[in-house]
């Protein structure tokens, strides 16, 4: 008799255990799905320029008023000094993309009114490609780019 109740008990426990396991699994699976769609929704995970712009909802037009200052030839690809400045009034956000990095979206700077629209920072540039800056002013986006050449070993051109 005792054995029977024990069996019943363990069976019940097994069932609840399974359901608990199931409910634990469910959010994990949901998370995995999120990660799949994150390719489009998370700009930091975007691997191409188009995806990153789409994820951020940016439609930018080329503008001479945005300036990207970076070396033509990177001496050290792991530390490339980049300055982004703009003469556009009311610049709110500055985005930096590096076109040939595994994840292109590199940085976003949100500026308050008193800050000059010019930011200096250093980036890793994996391969020869463009450093692209996008400036948001009002509802519009302006973009410009600068090609940076990366050589292995850091010599020659």
């Amino acid at each position, binding site marked *: 008799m005792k054995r029977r109740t024990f069996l019943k008990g363990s069976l019940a426990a097994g069932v609840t255990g399974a359901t608990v396991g199931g409910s634990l699994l469910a959010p994990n699976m949901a998370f995995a799905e999120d990660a799949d769609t994150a390719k489009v929704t998370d700009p*930091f995970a975007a691997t191409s320029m188009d995806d990153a712009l789409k994820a951020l909802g940016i439609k930018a037009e080329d503008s001479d008023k945005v300036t990207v200052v970076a070396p033509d030839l990177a001496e050290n690809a*792991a*530390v*490339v*000094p980049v300055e982004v400045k703009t003469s556009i009034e009311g610049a709110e956000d500055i985005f930096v993309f*590096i076109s040939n*990095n*595994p*994840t292109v*979206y*590199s*940085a*976003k*700077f*949100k*500026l*308050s009114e*008193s*800050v*000059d629209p*010019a*930011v*200096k*920072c*250093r*980036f*890793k540039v994996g391969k020869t490609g463009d450093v692209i800056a996008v400036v948001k002013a009002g509802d519009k986006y302006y973009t410009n780019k600068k090609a940076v050449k990366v050589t292995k070993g850091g010599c020659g051109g």
Partner: protein
Amino acid sequence: MAKKFKTRLKAKLKDGKVNIKAIVSHPMETGHRKDKKTGEKIPAHYINEVIVSANDKTLLTADWSGSVSKNPYLSFNYAGKSGDKIKLSWKDNQGNTGEAEKTVK
């Protein structure tokens, strides 16, 4: 842990503008790099949020990815005055934080 990531901040008044320069000692791992000995991927470890404020008013917020260089550097100017209290705080993707404070001379 706090001492591992040193945050350095400079604030200097020049021609009516305050120049802010900051460097944080941080590895800024992208998560793409492999350990040469074991061949295993080094987990991503980078600063993803930086907030700079003056007198408790936010000046600049930066969202970063692993593409920012090791020991990241940041510099910008803002219209400020002597005596402004500058505060920089950052967070990384592994939950570490750091901050530095400076008064504009």
